[in-house]
């Protein structure tokens, strides 16, 4: 039965239900319970965003493991444990912290299956929060999924809401390859209808969020709701937008995007990541290569600028793509004349 759950609750429920179903699922990370070795309350935080609150109460310290601040050690341990019979879900508190443990992700976990001739299985999930808008500035706000998407051997999930989040995280835990699961921190408090029972959403299947015939908007994570807002504004102006949420960047469902662009002839890609070598550039390039004849306007990219995320609210609000910027790009694509 569906009821309203926030994205935060959806993550917690997906973890809880899968831990009940599969005793080999463990969680590890910094302060994911909180209070370990301290004189006060245990389960003090449930992670810095409260995502894993309550899980240690049900599953105990053996399966909900607070770690020292040692990302290389515990991300690497999650990877090693995944090759040895567990299905660990590690929490890398902010994706920005990949800088202190990336080797264990991209040189170790990502390579095992191929490098060992297909004989290794590494069912590890690394959950991590991303995204600007929290006034957390340069080292706690980035959207680094393009870096991970670049690397063969990693699957990358960028859910845009609570319903997808639960289904995709359950799928991620059951997947036999390393999955990086990106949670946009500005989505944590957004609620949606979420079924109580477990379900999975396959990777590499885009969600057509809104059907339309004039312009295709592809958007990821938090940008999906911005794209929908833009589409509603544009509908009043008589521009009928299709909004596609790829849901996973690796694997990427290009077919759904191509099918849409072949109908609309116009593409706007919205990506909160920096503009060079991001998903917007990648998708625009692939569409240009494979559906050039269908395009009636150049693909447009609406992205963050090529700067670190600024602190000042006035600057950060300019940094993040907005529904207005998306609407402008759509209008320009619509009005384009060769």
């Amino acid at each position, binding site marked *: 039965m569906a009821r309203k759950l926030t994205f935060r609750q959806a993550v917690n429920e997906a973890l809880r239900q899968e831990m009940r179903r599969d005793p080999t699922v463990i969680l590890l990370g910094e302060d994911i319970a909180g209070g370990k070795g301290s004189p006060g309350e245990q389960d003090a935080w449930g992670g810095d965003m409260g995502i894993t609150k309550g899980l240690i109460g049900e599953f105990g310290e053996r399966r909900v493991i607070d770690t020292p601040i*040692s990302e290389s050690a*515990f991300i690497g341990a999650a990877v090693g444990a995944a090759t*040895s019979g567990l299905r660990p879900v590690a929490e890398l508190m902010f994706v920005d912290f990949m800088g202190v443990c990336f080797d*264990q992700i991209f040189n*170790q976990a990502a390579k095992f299956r191929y*490098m060992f001739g297909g004989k290794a299985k590494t069912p590890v999930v690394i959950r991590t929060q991303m995204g600007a808008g929290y006034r957390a500035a340069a080292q706690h706000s980035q959207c680094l999924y393009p870096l991970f998407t670049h690397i063969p051997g990693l699957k990358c999930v960028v859910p845009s809401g609570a319903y997808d989040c639960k289904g995709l995280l359950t799928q991620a835990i059951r997947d036999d390859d390393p999955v990086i699961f990106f949670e946009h921190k500005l989505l944590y408090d957004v609620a949606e209808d979420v079924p109580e029972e477990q379900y999975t959403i396959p990777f590499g299947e885009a969600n057509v969020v809104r059907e339309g015939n004039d312009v295709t908007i592809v958007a990821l994570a938090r940008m999906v709701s911005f794209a929908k807002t833009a589409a509603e504004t544009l509908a009043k102006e008589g521009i009928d937008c299709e909004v596609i949420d790829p849901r996973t960047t690796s*694997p990427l469902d290009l077919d759904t995007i191509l099918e849409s662009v072949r109908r609309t002839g116009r593409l706007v890609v919205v990506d909160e990541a920096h503009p060079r070598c991001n998903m917007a550039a990648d998708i625009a390039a692939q569409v240009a290569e494979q559906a050039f004849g269908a395009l009636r306007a150049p693909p447009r990219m609406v992205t963050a600028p090529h700067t670190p995320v600024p602190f000042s609210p006035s600057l950060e609000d300019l940094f993040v793509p907005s529904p207005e910027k998306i609407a402008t790009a759509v209008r320009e694509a619509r009005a384009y004349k060769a």
Partner: protein
Amino acid sequence: MQINRTELLEAYRKMRTIRVFEERVHEEFATGQMPGFVHLYAGEEASAVGVCLNLSDDDKICSTHRGHGHCIAKGCDVPGMMLELYGRRDGLCGGKGGSMHIADLSKGMMGANAIVGGGPPLACGAALAAKTLGTGKVAVTFTGDGGSNQGTTFESMNFASVLKLPVVFVFENNGYAETTGSSWSVACGDIVNRAPAFAMPGVMVDGHDFFAVHEAASEAIARARAGEGPTLIEVKVDRYFGHHEGDSEKYRAPGEVAKLRAEKDCLKRFRKRVTEAGLLQAGELDAIDRDVGALIDRSVKAALAAPMPTAADLMTDVYISY
């Protein structure tokens, strides 16, 4: 710790196999037919074999770029290894790993590792799995003196100690990180001096003495299996070849390797000790020498004649093909 006859024969066979394998790879590499980079383990055999003789297939090890010895000691298929070094389709990793990434998870060999310090976090993970699942198994991570200075290694030692993981940190100190002397690069002199900082026992052993390594490892592994947490073992070893094949070794003292081979060789020492004590007969060891020689010959011949991977193999073992 008593070692029975069968184990002694096994130990000698493995040490001898590593030696002949590496001496032969040294020759084969010089022909130009073997691709890539190889880092030879000759001289350090007593370390890998002394440790791994205490392990079963279900115990895990993580290795280094100098991984052939650990593979053989852990029971990896020798012809399969030679195929892999030659990049052949039927190699241990299908020709996709090569010397620096050779692995066989079915033998508990989690991989050579071309990233210095890459292994310790992974070994902590294997140990975490053993602890969580209650299997009684252990993990051993082999790291060099160079890798002993990596942050991943420090993090892993603290992590393992805090969580009381069944893991043994074996530091094979061969005196050189590439060209850089460990007497300079390890600030505290001996690596074993770091053990107290991580609240774990530390022992230093002569890596030319199989029996010393075996005993230290046996105690550390028993301690890990009993749930008493990690141990650090520093094994003082020497490598007979360069950092990699092709290394001019100008940084070593003149005559250093010849002297080591003459005075400290672990195989000679082993043979002397077991024959003088009447534990094994020289004839038995000679027979092993002949067997090993034939095995390595066969492995090289088979590898040279074996097919290379083809375009059809390029895109297998991936989850999605772009």
